[in-house]
């Protein structure tokens, strides 16, 4: 008995040792050696076993082969059509969405919508795993899911609904629509939009002799102003940086590429053909990370680490009592909560009125922003009436009045220009112009192909990989080395995804 268990322990220990010695590939490559027919187990990140498969299943979608959207079917429906809506809004955002849905249900008798709430991730997971009969009729998913959603072949493109119902989209922001379109197909309807803006402490600007109403527009200004702030002693740091994958380590880099009018992945950001590799390790990417590293090196910026944990570590750095920073970049969606928290007056060095908001500074100070947030998909239930009902509900949620209410209550950006002329959003913006900054930088975005962000299957994973590289650059790794490594791993992920889908 004794010897047997001793043997077991030894066996386990030696197994661990063997494994530790055998080098090991990347976990995302596991199983691919078999499919590729290559005997190499050390294929690691650059493995492109899926490249050939993906080449076949690429590019232009045959619009005719996609399901139709018979929007007139609702008129012939007898009784009330019950539909389900899965969404990813939580907390106060959920409350607002429930309000809108209740108002919709009360406004007519044809359709009754029921809401199912989860996080974006849970909603996506549940949606992907569900079989056709279990799927909702409308689903809200974030911008990084476009490729995956088209690959499920389970949706009615809203473009078909727009066409068949003659829905007027002229008031919508073109960039908002473009964010959810590939190869000429409008897949989803933008609903809640946010983008990153610059938050800064006006009191520090004044103390440093800067104009508190003129935030930096270009990266050079960002650096020179930071230097002035640090030199004057107005604050310990100019800029608080972080490397979260949903923010400074991933999403903002995509934004910076858009500002530089460069594509982030091939296939024109996956918009004209299926993306097969990332482009972020080009000169634009290297210059950008070298710049940020430089600011950390000369102590005009401070790294608060991976922000994906709380989403507000960088903002709190502005409220830090001993070593504050004067500026940071964060999503516009946090403006409401920030003003609310600072309004309590618990932070002596910054209160709600001291917060300045400016456009996100970019390479040349040029405007340009990608759409963040989420969109609404019509799910192909195979039932014309339910499809029509789903579309009817979506047109309500993206209506001018509803967008005005939604934006005023949440801090999201309205997806259409006419929402600005309607109350309550009109009053909100008039009272506090800081709420209009995120909207304005979208309106100012040039209508060029690079203004539609990257569409690639594993975009979330690519962000995670890049965030890792950004974190190591912040710790001192050479930007080119870090980006090349991240690009190789990302390309492996994309090849694997394309081979599977």
């Amino acid at each position, binding site marked *: 008995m004794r010897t047997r268990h001793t043997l077991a322990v030894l066996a386990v220990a030696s197994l661990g040792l063997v494994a530790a010695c055998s080098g090991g590939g990347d976990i995302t490559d596991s*199983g691919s050696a078999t499919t590729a027919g290559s005997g190499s187990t050390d294929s690691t990140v650059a493995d492109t076993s899926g490249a050939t498969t993906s080449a076949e299943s690429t590019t232009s979608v045959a619009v005719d082969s996609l399901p139709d959207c018979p929007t007139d079917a609702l008129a012939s429906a007898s009784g009330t059509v019950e539909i389900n809506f899965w969404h990813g809004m939580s907390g106060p955002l959920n409350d607002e969405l429930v309000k809108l849905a209740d108002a919709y249900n009360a406004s007519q008798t044809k359709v009754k919508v029921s809401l199912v709430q989860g996080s974006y991730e849970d909603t996506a997971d549940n949606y992907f795993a569900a079989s056709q009969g279990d799927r909702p009729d409308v689903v809200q998913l974030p911008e990084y899911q476009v490729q995956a959603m088209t690959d499920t072949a389970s949706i009615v493109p809203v473009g078909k609904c727009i066409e068949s119902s003659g829905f007027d989209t002229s008031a919508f922001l073109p960039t908002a629509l473009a964010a959810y379109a590939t190869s000429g197909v409008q897949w989803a309807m933008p609903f809640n939009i946010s983008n990153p803006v610059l938050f800064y402490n006006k009191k520090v600007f004044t103390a440093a002799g800067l104009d508190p109403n003129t935030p930096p527009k270009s990266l050079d200004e960002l650096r020179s102003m930071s230097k002035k702030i640090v030199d004057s002693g107005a604050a310990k740091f100019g800029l608080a940086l972080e490397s979260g994958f949903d923010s400074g380590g991933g999403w903002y880099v995509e934004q910076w590429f858009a500002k530089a009018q460069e594509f982030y992945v091939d296939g024109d950001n996956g918009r004209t053909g299926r993306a097969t590799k990332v482009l972020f390790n080009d000169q634009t990417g290297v210059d950008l990370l070298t710049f940020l590293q430089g600011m950390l090196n000369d102590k005009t910026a401070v790294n608060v680490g991976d922000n994906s944990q709380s989403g507000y570590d960088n903002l709190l750095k502005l409220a830090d009592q001993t070593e504050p920073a004067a500026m940071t970049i964060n999503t516009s969606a946090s403006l409401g909560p920030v003003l609310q928290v600072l309004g309590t007056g618990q932070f002596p060095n910054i209160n709600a009125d001291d917060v300045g908001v400016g456009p996100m500074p970019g390479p040349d100070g040029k405007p340009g922003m990608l759409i963040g947030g989420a969109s609404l998909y019509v799910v192909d239930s195979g039932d014309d009436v339910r499809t029509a009902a789903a579309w009817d509900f979506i047109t309500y949620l993206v209506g001018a009045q509803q967008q005005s209410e939604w934006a005023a209550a949440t801090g999201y950006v309205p997806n259409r220009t006419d929402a600005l002329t309607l109350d309550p959003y009109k009053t909100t913006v008039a009272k506090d112009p800081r709420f209009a900054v995120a909207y304005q930088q979208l309106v100012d975005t040039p209508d060029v192909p690079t203004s539609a962000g990257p569409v690639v299957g594993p975009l979330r994973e690519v962000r995670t990989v890049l965030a890792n590289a950004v974190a190591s650059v912040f710790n001192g790794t050479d930007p080119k080395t870090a980006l090349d490594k991240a690009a190789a791993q990302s390309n492996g992920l994309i090849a694997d995804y394309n081979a599977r889908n």
Partner: protein
Amino acid sequence: MKRRLRDVPWAIAMLLPSIALVAVWTIYPLVKAIQFGHLTCDVTGKKCRDVGWGRYWDVFTSTQFQHSLGVSLKLMLLTVPTGLVLGIGLAVLADKHLRGIGIFRTIFSSTVATSVAVASLVWFVLLQPQIGVLADVFSGWFPVLKNPGLLNDPGTALLAVAFSSIWANLGFTFIIITAALQSVPRDLYESAYVDGAGSTRRFTNVTLPMIAPTLLFVGVVLTTRALQTYGEIALLTSGGPNPEKPTTTIPYLIYGRTSLIHTDLGTKSAAAVLLFLLSLVLALVQFRGLEKRVHYGS
């Protein structure tokens, strides 16, 4: 014999509810996961093709899995012995017939009513480097609390997570061990006392052997919990800080927010099955290794 046979249908009927539950919620998912482990699937998990059982070996030997295996084992070594010792210590302290001892027992066991999420959030707020209380008060002595913060420093992040985990599990350990202590017959202590055994001797020769089965149970549970640590990681560090990822445990590698295999059903399942095998082997080793030394009483 005949009687026994007659009891069989009854036995089955009585066991059926449990069997059904275990089959639906444990066996079926397990079999599914093992199957998925050698498949590669599209996003919906419906169109799959076989990549062979070699996938398991690929996953096991991959850099990320080996790293997470190390993290999980480290976390286990940090939390299980400390948790056990602290649990025994507090239980022995509170195992006295004193006025007001109930208050202390309540305090010691209070964390059992605290979910992992709540415990983690409490520590997260306390440890917050910019405005957290601990950073404000102690950063003079421990600059790491402020710059970059205990959870943001690759050297201290896992320790901080382990600390939070130990704290959160202490209530459970305390309650179980207290119950075991109270079931030790008092006359054993009395006879040991009569025989001249001091308090240390009574603890090592009476208490420990008598509560050994409970310690084995608590040890196995704590080990399994340590290997399955997910909530603390998700709420405290997201597996970071990057790029070292010193807190990416195996469960976090499998389905954390920053997981690279999160949407890859096949690889994810293979990794999960490997985690199951690891827990199984460790539990077996614990039972095999300690069973002989454990006295279950008569």
